[in-house]
C-alpha cells in the first residue's frame, strides 16, 4: 500500500514522523487507519468533515483568544486524523507521567509544609522566595495531600530519535481535558468504523475517576461541588461549561460565591447553599482578594480563611502554581531519587535555571541554541529565541540575565515529531505536542489514555492554542478488550431518578430574567419599527402625528430628532430616527443593541440553554448588520425575519425548557417587560383620541399582533373601547395587559421566598383591571355629543395605567434585590 493521500513532500530526517519511518510505508499501528482512510477516499472524507465542522459551529465549541478583539468565540479547530499510540508505548508514557505526578505532589506538600527540601538544599530557595506564585498564606495550612495536584497536565514531545520528553508541566488549573473529550466525540463520529475496530482506550473512565475523586475530596455525604470559572471572556470558557455539564457540577463565577461563618456558599434563588469542593479554573493568586491578589475581581473574599477552617476543599489546592515553571525541571532527577528512590522515567527537555552560576555561564555561552523564558510565568515575558537576537541585543539581554539570573530559565529547542493532518482535501504533516493528564484520586493515580494533541501551524515548530494552532484526538490502541463505560449511560449503577432541576444560582436567575426582558423588548421595538417605517412616506399630516406618538411609546432617551422644541420632527427626520433605532448599535435603545445584549447575556448562561437556542441567539445577533446601509424599503423584510426568529425563541422557551426556577425568571422577565410597554401604549388611547388620531388604533393593534382578533370580532369598525377591550381587558388574548397580569401572579406565586407585599399588589392590580367595566365607560367620540354616563372612568383608567407603569419596574427591582442581590456586584477593596 502506498500513502497516496499524502500530497506534499514530507520533511523526513529532521523530525520523527509518527506515521511512517521511511515516508513510504506506515508504521504497523497506523496501517489499519490509513487503509480505511484510503478506502473512504478524499470526497467522502471531505463530506464527513464538513458535517463535523458544521456541528462544531452549531454546538458553539469555541476557544477565545485573549489579545484578539474579534477572537471571542472562535470556532474550535480540530483534525480528522487522530494521533495513534500503540499499547506498549502508552504503558511507558503512562508510567512516566504517573511517576511525575507522584513526585510533584510530594514537592508541593513539602513546599507548603515543612520546607525541608529548601533547608536541605534539594531545591534553591529563590524558586520560592522570588516566585510570585508562592502563596505564603497557604504555608502550613492543612489540606488533603491528594488535592495539591488533583490534576496534572504534562506536555510531551518526541525528539528525532523517537524518545518522549516533557516540555512543560501544568500544575494549577490545567486546561484542555474537556477539549480532548470533545475531539473524541467528533472524531469517533466521523470515523465510527475505525474507532470501533481499533480497540481504542475510552476516555470516560478517566472522567468518572475525576468526578469520584472530587466527591471524595469533600469527605462528607452528598457534597456540593462547583467548577469555578473566570467567566465567558476566558479563552477556555467553553470547556468550563462543557466539563461542568459532563461531570454534573454547577458552573460558577467568583461573584456567585460568598464566605460567611468561614464556609463557602453559593448564592441561589432559594438562598445560600453551602459548597464543599471547588474545582477551579481561576489562577490561584486570583482566588481570594482578601489574602492573595487584592486587585482580583475573579475570586471569593475570605476563601483562604474557609480553607484554613477546613470547610472547603480546592482542586488543585491553592498555591500549586508555584511549580508551574520550567525552573524546577533541572532539579527533578535529584528530587526523584531523594523522594521516591527511583530514577526519573520521563526526562524533561534540557533546561537551565539561570539562578545557578554554572547554568548561567552555560546559557550565556550558548544563547543561540536555547530559548529563554521567565522562570516565573506571572512576569508575563515573551520567550526569547537567542538565535533571533542581533549582536547588540544579545549583549543587552545578557546584562538582563546577569542582573537577576534567578528570574530566567533556558531550554533547548527540540524539533517536534510530525503527524498527518487533514487539510483542504489532503493529508499534510505537522509538528505535534501531546498534552496528557494525570489525576491523583487519593486512592491512586489515573492517567487519561491519550489526551489533547496540539498541532503547530503551517511552518513553525511553536505550538500554541493562543496563537491560533489547532488540535487532534489521540487514540491509544489497546492490546486487550477495553472498558466501554460511558459517563452518559452508566451500565452497572442504577440511576437515581430525579425530578428536581439543578440549583439555580442568583447570577443565572438574574441573567435569564434579563434575557426574557430583552427578548420581549426586542420584539416590541421590531414591531413598532415595522408598523411605522412603511407608513412614513405615505403618511398625511394626521397620520404623521400618529407615527410620532407611536415612536413616543418607545420612550427613547437617545433619539436623533433635532433638539429644537417648537417644531415637530418632519417625515425625513422621523425616517432617520427610525433607521437609527433599527441599526445604530451605539445607542443602547436600538434594536441592534438590544439583540447584541441578548447575545451577551445568552453567552453567560449558555450552559443553561439548548444548542438550538444558542444558535438562534447567534443568528439574531447577526440579523442586523450595522455597517451596511439599510434602505428604508428593505427594512420591513429584515424586521419580519427578525420577528420570526424572536417567535422561534419564544416557542423554544415555551416548549423546550423545563418549568424550573430558571424558566420562571425568564417568563417573569418577559411578562413584566410586555406589561410595561403595553401600559404605556394603552395610555395613548385613554387620552381621548381626536378624529385625526384614528389611525393610531390600527397601528396599536398591529404592534400587538391583534389586528386579526379585532377584525373577526368587530369587522372594520375601529372604536377605542373595542381596541381597549382586545388589548387590555381580554384575558384570553396573550397580547393583552390582563393576560400579562394573570401570568405575573401565577409565576410570582411559584417563586421560593416571594414577597407577600408584592404579590398582594399584583393581585390588586389584577382585580382592579378585572373590575373595570368598559361597557359603562363613556369614551368621547369625535363628532358625537358628550353623554353624562361614567365620565371620569377614563381618567381613572388613565391613573391606573400610570400607577401600573410605576409598580411594574418596582416589582422588577424587588426581584433583583430579593433573588439576585449582589449577584453581579464585585466586592470593593478597602485599606489596601
Amino acid at each position, binding site marked *: 500500500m502506498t500513502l497516496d493521500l499524502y500530497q506534499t513532500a514530507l520533511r523526513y530526517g529532521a523530525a520523527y514522523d509518527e506515521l511512517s519511518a521511511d515516508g513510504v510505508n506506515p508504521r504497523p499501528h497506523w496501517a489499519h487507519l490509513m487503509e480505511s482512510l484510503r478506502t473512504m477516499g478524499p470526497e467522502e472524507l471531505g463530506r464527513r468533515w464538513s458535517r463535523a465542522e458544521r456541528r462544531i459551529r452549531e454546538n458553539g465549541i469555541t476557544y477565545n483568544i485573549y489579545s484578539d478583539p474579534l477572537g471571542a468565540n472562535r470556532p474550535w479547530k480540530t483534525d480528522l486524523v487522530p494521533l495513534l499510540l500503540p499499547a506498549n508505548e502508552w504503558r511507558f508514557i503512562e508510567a512516566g507521567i504517573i511517576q511525575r505526578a507522584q513526585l510533584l505532589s510530594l514537592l508541593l506538600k513539602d513546599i507548603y509544609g515543612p520546607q525541608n527540601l529548601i533547608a536541605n538544599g534539594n531545591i534553591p*530557595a529563590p524558586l520560592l522566595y522570588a516566585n510570585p506564585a508562592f502563596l505564603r498564606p497557604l504555608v502550613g495550612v492543612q489540606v488533603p495531600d491528594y488535592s495539591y495536584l488533583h490534576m496534572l497536565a504534562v506536555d510531551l514531545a518526541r525528539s528525532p530519535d523517537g524518545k518522549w520528553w516533557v516540555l512543560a508541566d501544568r500544575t494549577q488549573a490545567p486546561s484542555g481535558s474537556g477539549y480532548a473529550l470533545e475531539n473524541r466525540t467528533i472524531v469517533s463520529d466521523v470515523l465510527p468504523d475505525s474507532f470501533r475496530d481499533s480497540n481504542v482506550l475510552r476516555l470516560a473512565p478517566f472522567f468518572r475517576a475525576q468526578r469520584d475523586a472530587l466527591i471524595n475530596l469533600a469527605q462528607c455525604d452528598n457534597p456540593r461541588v462547583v467548577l469555578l470559572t473566570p467567566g465567558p471572556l476566558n479563552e477556555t470558557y467553553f470547556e468550563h461549561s462543557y466539563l461542568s455539564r459532563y461531570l454534573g457540577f454547577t458552573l460558577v463565577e467568583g461573584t456567585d460565591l460568598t464566605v460567611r461563618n468561614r464556609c463557602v456558599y453559593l448564592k441561589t434563588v432559594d438562598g445560600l447553599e453551602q459548597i464543599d469542593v471547588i474545582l477551579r479554573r481561576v489562577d490561584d493568586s486570583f482566588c481570594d482578594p482578601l489574602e492573595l491578589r487584592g486587585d482580583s475581581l475573579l475570586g471569593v473574599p475570605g476563601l483562604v480563611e474557609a480553607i484554613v477552617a477546613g470547610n472547603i476543599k480546592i482542586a488543585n489546592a491553592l498555591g500549586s502554581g508555584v511549580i508551574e515553571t520550567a525552573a524546577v525541571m533541572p532539579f527533578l532527577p535529584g528530587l526523584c531519587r531523594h523522594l521516591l528512590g527511583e530514577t526519573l522515567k520521563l526526562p524533561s527537555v534540557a533546561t537551565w535555571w539561570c539562578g545557578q552560576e554554572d547554568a548561567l555561564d552555560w546559557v550565556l555561552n550558548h544563547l543561540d541554541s536555547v530559548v529563554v523564558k521567565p522562570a516565573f510565568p506571572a512576569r508575563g515575558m515573551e520567550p526569547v529565541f537567542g538565535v533571533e537576537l542581533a549582536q547588540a541585543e544579545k549583549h543587552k539581554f545578557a546584562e538582563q540575565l546577569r542582573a537577576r539570573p534567578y528570574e530566567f530559565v533556558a531550554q533547548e529547542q527540540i524539533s517536534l515529531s510530525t503527524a498527518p493532518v487533514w487539510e483542504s482535501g489532503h493529508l499534510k504533516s505537522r509538528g505535534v505536542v501531546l498534552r496528557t493528564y494525570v489525576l491523583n484520586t487519593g486512592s491512586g493515580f489515573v492517567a487519561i489514555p491519550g489526551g489533547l494533541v496540539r498541532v503547530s501551524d503551517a511552518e513553525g515548530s511553536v505550538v500554541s492554542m493562543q496563537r491560533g494552532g489547532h488540535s487532534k484526538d489521540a487514540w491509544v490502541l489497546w492490546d486487550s478488550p477495553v472498558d466501554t463505560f460511558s459517563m452518559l449511560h452508566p451500565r452497572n449503577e442504577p440511576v437515581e431518578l430525579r425530578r428536581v432541576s439543578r440549583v439555580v444560582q442568583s447570577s443565572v436567575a438574574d441573567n435569564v430574567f434579563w434575557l426574557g426582558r430583552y427578548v420581549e423588548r426586542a420584539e416590541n421595538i421590531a414591531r413598532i419599527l415595522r408598523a411605522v417605517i412603511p407608513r412614513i412616506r405615505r403618511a398625511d399630516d394626521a397620520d404623521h402625528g400618529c407615527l410620532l406618538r407611536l415612536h413616543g411609546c418607545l420612550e427613547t432617551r437617545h433619539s436623533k430628532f433635532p433638539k429644537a422644541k417648537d417644531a415637530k420632527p418632519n417625515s425625513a427626520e422621523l425616517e432617520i430616527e427610525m433607521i437609527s433605532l433599527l441599526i445604530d448599535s451605539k445607542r443602547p435603545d436600538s434594536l441592534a443593541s438590544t439583540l447584541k445584549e441578548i447575545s451577551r447575556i445568552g453567552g453567560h448562561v449558555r450552559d443553561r440553554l439548548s444548542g438550538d437556542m444558542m444558535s438562534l441567539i447567534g443568528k439574531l445577533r447577526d440579523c442586523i448588520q450595522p455597517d451596511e446601509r439599510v434602505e428604508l424599503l428593505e427594512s420591513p423584510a429584515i424586521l419580519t425575519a427578525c420577528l420570526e426568529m424572536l417567535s422561534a425563541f419564544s416557542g423554544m422557551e415555551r416548549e423546550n425548557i423545563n418549568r424550573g426556577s430558571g424558566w420562571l425568571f425568564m417568563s417573569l422577565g418577559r411578562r413584566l417587560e410586555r406589561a410595561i410597554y403595553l401600559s404605556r401604549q394603552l395610555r395613548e388611547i385613554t387620552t381621548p383620541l381626536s378624529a385625526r388620531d384614528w389611525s393610531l388604533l390600527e397601528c396599536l393593534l398591529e404592534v400587538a399582533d391583534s389586528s386579526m382578533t379585532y377584525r373577526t370580532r368587530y369587522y372594520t369598525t375601529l372604536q377605542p373601547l373595542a381596541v381597549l377591550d382586545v388589548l387590555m381587558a381580554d384575558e384570553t388574548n396573550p397580547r393583552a395587559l390582563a393576560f400579562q397580569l394573570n401570568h405575573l401572579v401565577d409565576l410570582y406565586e411559584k417563586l421560593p421566598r416571594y414577597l407577600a407585599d408584592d404579590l398582594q399588589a399584583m393581585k390588586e392590580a389584577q382585580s382592579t383591571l378585572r373590575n373595570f367595566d368598559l361597557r359603562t365607560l363613556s369614551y368621547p367620540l369625535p363628532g358625537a355629543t358628550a353623554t353624562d354616563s361614567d365620565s371620569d372612568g377614563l381618567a381613572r383608567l388613565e391613573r391606573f395605567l400610570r400607577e401600573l407603569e410605576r409598580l411594574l419596574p418596582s416589582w422588577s427591582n424587588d426581584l433583583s434585590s430579593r433573588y439576585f442581590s*449582589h449577584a453581579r456586584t464585585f466586592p470593593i477593596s478597602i*485599606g489596601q
Partner: protein
Amino acid sequence: MNYKILHRTTYKYKYPVSLGNHVACLTPRPSLVHQAARSELIIHPEPATRTERIDYFGNILCFFTIQEAHKELEVEARSEVTVQRNAVSLKPQSIAWEEAVRLLPTDQSRAGLEAYQFQFESPRIRIRPEFAAYALRSFTPGRPLTEALIDLNTRIYKDFRFDSKATTVRTPTEDAFRKRRGVCQDFAHIEIACLRSLNLAARYVSGYLRTYPPPGRPRLIGADASHAWLSAYCPGYGWLDLDPTNNLVPSDGHVTLAWGRDYSDVSPLRGLILGGGAHRLRVSVDMEPLED
C-alpha cells in the same frame, strides 16, 4: 519603657454594607525587644466570626466577618507594651557590605533562609537600576555594612521631603522616589528598594512612634499616628532597624506591630465589602507612656 496604645480605625459608608470580610494586623507581635502585656481588639458591629492566625512572617492577624448590614465599622486596638531595646552597638568593624551580599544566598541556617526571602521583589517593591545607583553612593567598595546602612538612612532623610499630600497609600515606590517626597511608608519602601537592588535583605516594619508634646504643653490624646520603618539584615549581627523618616536607629520610642516584605503584607486593616458606596476613613492613635 511601657506604653498604653489605643489605635482606632473608623469607616463610614454612604450606603449599607451587607457583607464585610476583613483582616486586621493590629496586635503587637512578641519579639526579643518587646512584649505585649495585654492586647485586645474591639470591633463594632459585632463580627459573626472572628479568628486569630499567625501569618507566614510570624505576625498576629485577626480575621473577621460582619454579616449584618452596617454603615459604620469601628475597630479599636488596645495594647499595653513593654519595650526594652539594648543600646545598639554598631560595631564599626562589621563586615564589608559586599561580603554580606555574598554570604546571604549561601547561608542555609534557619535565620539565614528567613533573611534571604527579604532580598527579592515583593508586591510593592521592584528591583531597579535607579535604586541601586542611588544606594551605591553610600555603599562604596569595602565599606562596613552598618556604616553604609546608616549613611543611606541619613541621605534618604535629607534628600526626601516628608509631605503627606504628595503620595497616597497606593503610590508606587518608583513615583515617590522620583518625586523625592512622601510619608514614612514611602521612605521605608524606598530604602528597602535601594537595599534589595544591591542584593541585600530588608523588611518593612509597621508600628508606632512615641511623640513628644512641645515643651510646657500637655500631651494631645489621639494626635499620634501609626508609623513605618525598616529592618536590614546584617549577617553575623542580625536585624538592624532603621527609621529614615526621622534619621535614627529605633530604640525605646518605637513599638513594633508587625513586619513583612512591604506594606501589602502588614496593612493594619483591610477588607472586601459588598455595597457601601463611597466611604470615609478616620484613624486615631494614642500612645501613652506609663510609669514603671
